[in-house]
């Protein structure tokens, strides 16, 4: 398994590297021509170096290594994401099993779904009066929809045969849920979980920017205000790489459940 990946990796790495190189070249060109305020790649590296080589260093509340900031953000996202799943899964199950529930709640879900994190956050601040729970609330409100919708889809797509088995055996509601509905819907649910995690991570920057909480997003905004633009780029790259990594990990988990 590992062998296959590495064999393909050495050959398959060339084109992705080419793509990255191209983007870096455009970036360098842009900063040296028409957008002189944009730091060049070399300058970005130089200024960011202390944050990368000592990624867990804590020099002050607002001056910490990049991975330390990332860690704070991950914890925050983890909490919001967990809340999203804890709310979204049962909601999705209800939508999947009950036509009545779907008719009642699907419209409001469709209305709440496209609301931006920038809109939820102030509301969270009003409700909770504190930035930390407001941020978690925002992450949960934005990221739970794919879990809700995919869980509902998963339950609706369960073949009638499986339900017939449950009926012939007269399985209790609880047993039907845990032995038939959930396992059958699991592949769909994991697709939802993966998409939700992507959104949760997407929302972190907005949440931290507005609350000023320490994390990659907070750091990004603070460095913008401090005119250290190199760190904005460092943050963008970090956010991107971490998001990519999270998606990959969830993809692996998802695939495990699909084959199983």
């Amino acid at each position: 398994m590992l062998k296959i990946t590495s064999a393909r990796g050495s050959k398959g790495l060339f084109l992705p590297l080419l793509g990255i190189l191209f983007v870096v070249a455009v970036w360098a060109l842009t900063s040296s021509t028409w957008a002189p305020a944009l730091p060049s790649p070399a300058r970005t590296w130089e200024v960011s170096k202390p944050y990368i080589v000592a990624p867990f260093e804590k020099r002050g509340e607002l001056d910490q290594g990049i991975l330390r900031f990332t860690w704070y953000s991950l914890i925050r996202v983890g909490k919001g994401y967990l809340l999203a799943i804890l709310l979204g899964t049962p909601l999705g199950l209800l939508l999947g099993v009950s036509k009545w529930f779907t008719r009642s709640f699907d419209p409001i879900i469709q209305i709440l779904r496209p609301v931006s994190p920038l809109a939820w956050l102030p509301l969270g601040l009003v409700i909770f009066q504190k930035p930390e729970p407001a941020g978690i609330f925002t992450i949960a409100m934005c990221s739970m929809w794919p879990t809700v919708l995919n869980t509902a889809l998963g339950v609706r797509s369960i073949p009638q045969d499986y339900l017939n088995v449950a009926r012939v055996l007269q399985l209790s509601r609880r047993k039907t849920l845990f032995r038939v509905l959930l396992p059958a819907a699991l592949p769909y649910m994991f697709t939802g979980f993966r998409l939700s995690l992507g959104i949760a991570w997407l929302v972190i920057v907005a949440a931290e920017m507005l609350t000023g909480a320490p994390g990659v997003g907070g750091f990004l905004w603070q460095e913008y205000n401090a005119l250290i633009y190199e760190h904005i780029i460092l943050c963008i790259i970090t956010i991107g790489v971490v998001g990519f990594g999270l998606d990959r990990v969830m993809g692996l988990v998802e695939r495990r459940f699909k084959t199983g």
Partner: protein
Amino acid sequence: MNPFVEMRAVSKGFASASGRVSVLEDVNLEVGEGEFVAIVGYSGSGKTTLVSLLAGLLTPDSGTVSVAGKPVLGPGPDRGVVFQNYSLLPWLTVFENVHLAVDQVFAQATDAEKRARTERYIQLVNLSHAKDRKPGQLSGGMRQRVSVARALAMDPKVLLLDEPLGALDALTRGTLQNEISRIWQADRKTVVMITNDVDEAILLADRIIPLSAGPKATLGPAISVEIERPRDRKALNHHPEFKHVRSRVIEYLLGSAAQRRATRARESLPLTLSNALGEA
């Protein structure tokens, strides 16, 4: 003889785009205890609807269904169903699939008893070697055997087989027919089997009841199969009774299809549709 399984004046229809379609009309069926009855009919004539009514997965629009003297009001483990497409839960192993049923029906038994019962029925269909595999890792024939084991392990009063071998290749089909025959002779359950294979019906059943071509399908006159058991597949082909039963069943089915065609022509339905039904 009091019928063990009984359908009286049962009709069932479904709503469709072009109005209500009556699938079964005035179906009467009586099956004695311990009897093996095969219902033979065209595909699409409402055979699966018939089984679903007996299983209680569907309720009739009119008429009554009863098993062992009690009206059927819903599905239950006293009627073990072997579904056409096996209906195994793919995330459970062979053992777990059968055990789920045993656990449910024999809730009061000890764990050891339930395990032993599960093992015994897996053994009965010769799958002990594969009991830890998931359905996805089994061939069609093996899956169907698991499905049979699951149904039998529930110790149902009636076994309902819905085209149990329909999806299998001819060779596997033959093997499984022998197995069903062997198992049935060992435990003489009441069986209602649905099939589109007349030879299969003659090999296994005490009585064959043809189902006329749908829509508005109904059961024709029962034909007894007076051939001593165990029936040997090879000798059967030359048995005079075999030829006799076979031609009667086929005559009835062809007759009902011709009649259907004639009715359809009178009702001036699209020609292609009536053709399709005739060839089915």
